[in-house]
């Protein structure tokens, strides 16, 4: 019996969300009196894998098959299922990413397991009950859910778990090979295109997000959002109408029908704070709102606020951010 964590790589490094999943997994293992093993596929350096010891991972199984550098759901499922079998894993932990949740869902079927996605806290393990807390109603509530099958699969919401960095010595890295067949690649992507973030931060992984709404008046003013983001090491985002009009790309749209973010700091400039926008950001730890209308609903959800013209306030923030010692 053990805990198995799936870690995702990007450009050779392990994604931050996967370091969170590893930290989560090793804490679950500790609570269950067992060890945590990680399984990694494709695009990660072995040195990065060995460093997972810091997150409390004792062993990493690594499938270095070149065909797996891009995401191929069926093949990934086969590799992880093999690792789970080899380790007699009873708990499988993923990041709640598009990849992690997809593979987790398929494994729930294959391993006949219970699955909880969007999980925000460590489980309560009490006698026969294994209870997780997950976000429901688009950030408006949490649910406590018993996972009733023998195998439990958990996809951990990004930025909801602290990364442990004193877990232990380097993890041992072992090769894993899952005898993949041609048919496992039937739905392999023809092409994978990564966004150019200009060296900036990816929105789903960001700890700080600077976001603009219709109150920014037009795309010609977005340099203010970008400049503040750059100074703070933040990703940029926007409200739905802003991406609908085409001021910003769709992948920046946060909210009920866009992506959900839960950064440590969310700065909203010229966004009214409609309930559908809040649904995507309300689990952010600290929210700052800049709006010229003191009655804007966003102020009710904010920790800090400035009632003023964003086009005048943002340059002052940029200046102050530049003066911070980093």
């Amino acid at each position, binding site marked *: 019996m053990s805990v198995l964590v799936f870690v995702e790589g990007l450009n050779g490094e392990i*994604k931050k969300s996967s370091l969170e999943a590893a930290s989560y997994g090793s804490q679950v293992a500790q609570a269950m009196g067992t060890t945590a093993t990680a399984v990694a596929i494709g695009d990660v350096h072995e040195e990065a894998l060995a460093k997972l010891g810091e997150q409390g991972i004792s062993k990493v199984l690594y499938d270095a098959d070149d065909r797996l550098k*891009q995401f191929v*759901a069926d093949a990934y499922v086969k590799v992880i299922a093999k690792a789970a079998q080899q380790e007699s894993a009873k708990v499988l932990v993923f990041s709640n990413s*598009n990849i992690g949740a997809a593979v*987790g*869902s398929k494994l*729930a*079927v294959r391993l006949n*397991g*219970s*699955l*909880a*996605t*969007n999980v925000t806290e460590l489980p309560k393990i009490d006698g026969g009950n294994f209870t997780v*807390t*997950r976000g*429901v*109603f*688009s950030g*408006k*509530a*949490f*649910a*406590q*859910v018993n*996972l*009733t099958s023998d195998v439990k699969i958990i996809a951990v919401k990004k930025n909801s778990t602290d990364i442990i960095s004193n877990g232990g010595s380097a993890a041992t890295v072992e090769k894993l090979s899952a005898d993949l067949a041609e048919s496992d690649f*039937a*739905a*392999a992507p*023809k*092409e*994978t*295109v*990564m*966004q150019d*973030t200009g060296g900036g931060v990816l929105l789903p*992984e960001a700890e700080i997000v600077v976001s603009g709404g219709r109150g920014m008046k037009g795309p010609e003013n977005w340099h203010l959002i970008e400049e503040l983001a750059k100074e*703070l090491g933040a990703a940029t985002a926007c409200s739905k109408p802003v991406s609908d009009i085409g001021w910003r790309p769709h*992948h920046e749209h946060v909210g*009920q*029908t*866009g992506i959900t973010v839960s950064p440590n*700091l969310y700065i909203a400039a010229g966004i009214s704070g409609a309930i559908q926008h809040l*649904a995507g950001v309300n689990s952010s*730890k*600290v929210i*700052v709102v800049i709006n010229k209308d003191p009655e804007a609903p966003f*102020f*009710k959800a*904010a*920790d*800090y*606020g*400035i*009632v003023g013209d964003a086009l005048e306030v943002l340059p*002052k*923030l940029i200046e*102050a951010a530049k003066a*911070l010692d980093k």
Partner: protein
Amino acid sequence: MKILVCISNVPDTTSKINFTGDNKEFDKNGVQYVINPWDEYALTRAIELKEAKGGSVTVLNVGEADAEPNIRKALAIGADDAIRVNAHPKDAYFVAQQITAVANEGGYDMILMGKESIDYNGFQVHNMVGEMMGIPSVTPAFKLDMVDDSTARLEREIEGGKEVVEVKLPFVASAQQPMCEPRIPNMRGIMTARTKPLKVVEPTGGEAKSEYVNYSKPEKKSGVKLIEPENAGELIKLLRNEAKVL
């Protein structure tokens, strides 16, 4: 082309969320229900494909009778017929089993749904159905076109980028923006929807693998601290020294 579109019946996006019975149950009191917004993308795209290539669009809901107004709405938007599996949707695994049973029986070329429901935010059902049926599932897709009569080309979002995937029919896909502009029913659609077939079937057994035991709400914010716009720079200092997020 036969397309199956799965829709769920969810609280309107503006709903206040409350619980009853010692926080054990969702309080439906005063809540308006709508077609899950993500499912509207799947439904509209299915209708567009049918208009371009011929075929039929069947909507499927796993739910109780109170979902029927929104099933009729989907018919009014342009689906041809509907099936309701008469069951409380206990969890994603249970729902996926019901969808799989209907899909296997109907022989559909494409099974579409939204990327997740805005109430339980699972992001699970589409991949489970693909796995149960042994066919590809492409999720979350924001573009879906036919290359030829037996092949579709989809673009799906991954963190930080996208993948272009070509799959043979049949397949499962989940939809998100900007796949299409979701349609709303017109008067004629509403009239014809009344006479379109809506079949109610009983669930095929099937088990749930999780059990919702309790709900809670996030802690309320303690109130906003306002900073004068002239001293905007002060905010950055507070974020570092007080909130400790910089």
